[in-house]
């Protein structure tokens, strides 16, 4: 019986590891496209995502959003807090990536969005915002660039 549980545990870990590997790969690619640096410093709001991205060699997860090159946010409140703090402390916001469409739609500071819809990976970029930040994306992401919402 013990052997069975050991095998099951190992298999579970393998399966979970595979799922995490895909998430890691997506963010590595996205954030790498947004910030052309060898190692991109990233602030992550969501703890689970944070735990996954910590394993990346190309991404450095930081706790201070203002030390990050980019921040991945889920909630409107997180964005508002960040913005207030930026204003208060006179600091510049990092490049923002939204994990929900509405967050991306409602706030101009978000330069990219990534989420899942109908089982499909959805990236979203607005051409005007990319231009504003002077970001030129790789051809892989061109499909997801729209002119307006």
């Amino acid at each position: 019986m013990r052997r069975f549980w050991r095998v099951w545990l190992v298999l579970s870990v393998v399966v979970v590891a595979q799922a995490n590997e895909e998430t890691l790969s997506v963010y590595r690619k996205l954030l790498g496209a947004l910030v052309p640096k060898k190692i991109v410093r990233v602030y992550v709001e969501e703890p689970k995502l944070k735990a996954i991205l910590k394993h990346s060699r190309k991404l450095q997860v930081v706790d201070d959003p203002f030390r990050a090159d980019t921040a991945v946010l889920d909630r409107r409140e997180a964005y508002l807090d960040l913005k207030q703090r930026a204003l208060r402390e006179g600091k510049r916001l990092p490049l923002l990536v939204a994990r929900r469409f509405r967050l991306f739609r409602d706030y101009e500071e978000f330069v990219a969005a990534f989420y899942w819809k109908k089982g499909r990976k959805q990236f979203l970029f607005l051409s005007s915002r990319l231009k504003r930040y002077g970001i030129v994306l790789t051809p892989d992401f061109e499909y997801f660039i729209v002119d307006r919402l």
Partner: protein
Amino acid sequence: MLFFVERLKTAALVVILALFALFAVHIYKTVSAGTRYLKELEAKQAAEYAARIASLIADETENLSSEHLENSRAESIDKINMLLRTFMTEEYRYLYIVRKNGPKTFNILYDASGKSDRSEPFFPRDEAFYDAYEKGEALLVSGRKKEAPDEVWRTMLYPLKDANGSVNGMVVLELSSAHIEKIEGVRRSLDRLFKTAGVAAGIFAFIVFYGLIYYYRWYVWHYIDGITYAKNRTYLSDFMRKYTLKSYGVALIDIDGFKHVNRSVGAEGGDMILRRFAKNLKTMLPFGSEVVRTVGAEFFVMVPQRAFKKRSLEEMLRNVSDTLGKKQYVSPDGKKASFTLSVVAVEELPLQSVSELSVLLHFLDEKMFLVKSKGKNSILLVEDDQAEALRFKNSEYVKTLLENGGIACLYQPIVNMKTKKAVKYEALVRLVDPDTKKQISPYLFMESLKGTSHYIKLTKMVLSEVFLQLERYDKIAISVNLDLSDLLNEELIEAIEWYLKSHRGCASRLTFEIVEDQEIKDFEKVRKTLERLRRYGSQIALDDFGSGFASYRYLVKLDWDILKIDGSLVKELENNTKKAKNVLASIKAVADLNRYVLIAEFIENETFCTLLTEIGIVLGQGYFFAKPDTLRNLIEQGHTVKCVS
């Protein structure tokens, strides 16, 4: 026969396994076909389903007009969402209606999950969406593409056209992988089973293959003669132990004078000739025959008896001798050689034939000696009755005969040639076949019993019978045979002593005829043993005096009561009367001086009687007086023996 039965069993097992495998494959294919059918059925139903959805949407949106489809009133959206929700079953993962918005994006207008934001662009990441929308044709798309969702098996795209035929939207019905997994459940299990079985079979096949190679190498090393590539003695020995030669005719073939061949063509040439000979021999024999190189230039062949329906073994071997014996062989360096063959054959080995190779070869060797001594280059077919002797070389069989059939004692009278009266009877033991009741001569079986516990048992049985007769007939004397080697067997001597002790009253009427089967090395021990036998009044006779080791030295070294002159000496009276008479007379003189009773064996006619009595030898034994018979029959003749001419 057993050999082929074993192979048949293996073949039958292989056939059964193959049939089982075929059956398993058939089940697998049936299940796969069934699963495929169910899946196709699902796909077909999806198309009908999407059409029905479209029809209901059409009712709600003024026949799918663009304006009504895009109606952004909340209650309208909710209503249609709810409608879509009613269509959601466990077979479907997603159900929504999209509308194209720009060259690459869609918007989700209605969603069975009720969660969509119409302003949100939807990237389907599948060219099929664009194709179906542009062409206005329903399309069923496989979910096996790179960017396709894992949870979707297939996607049904059903364009919604208005009255003018314009596509204003598209129903997207995505069939669930989980549901299909259930349908595929049995097939996947079978698939896994087959894959596992396949891997196991692959490993097994590898092991078997490797095992076969190993077995082949071992087989060649163990059973194949390195020079001729025929089978070797080990093969034959193992074959005889496992199976039986009962259904084979056998022969021993010896190449005459191969030593000279070797000398003339050299060792390498000789080996080559042997190799070719063995190969040719094999091809000349019927299917199922084996050629075994026993030693040197000697081959043992076994031919299945079923082949004798067409040609007898003798004919086959004659053909071999004529063909291969006349053939001229050329060595690698161009030297020529030819030779003749000497052959001994047995067409049918008897039942319960010997299972030891050495005994069989010894038997055939003895016959080969006869062939060679008659000038070689000939074939000797051993007669059935001679071959019968082989049966008795099987010690286990002989022991069984002794256990089940027992013994019979025949007696031959020792006669006073003057009075023609029997003075003594020599006991001659016979084995009795329990099935046929046939009596078997000790010449055939004694060698198999010698040295075994059954020999002592036989001796006890003989003594029991003899003492029974001595007690039954209180006036007669009987002699029994013992070998010199028996005198050195303490267990046997003790057994004899016990009988003598138990039958003291008749022990003095018993004579032990000592037959020399080997040269005496320890005279002192033999002397002491003879003394022990004499202790109860029995007499000691030296048998076969005048032949073999039974020389005058024995007369000096040991004490005897009786000398029995060997029949070969007596026989010489026929051919060399004068010389033989002189020799026999000298023996008579020695006997007289030492007070030995003298008995002449092999008396076959009246002439012998006359000549011997002239010399003064009065006692004789032989067919002239009586053939071995039961004591009762002989006694009934009243101690008077009819002379048989």
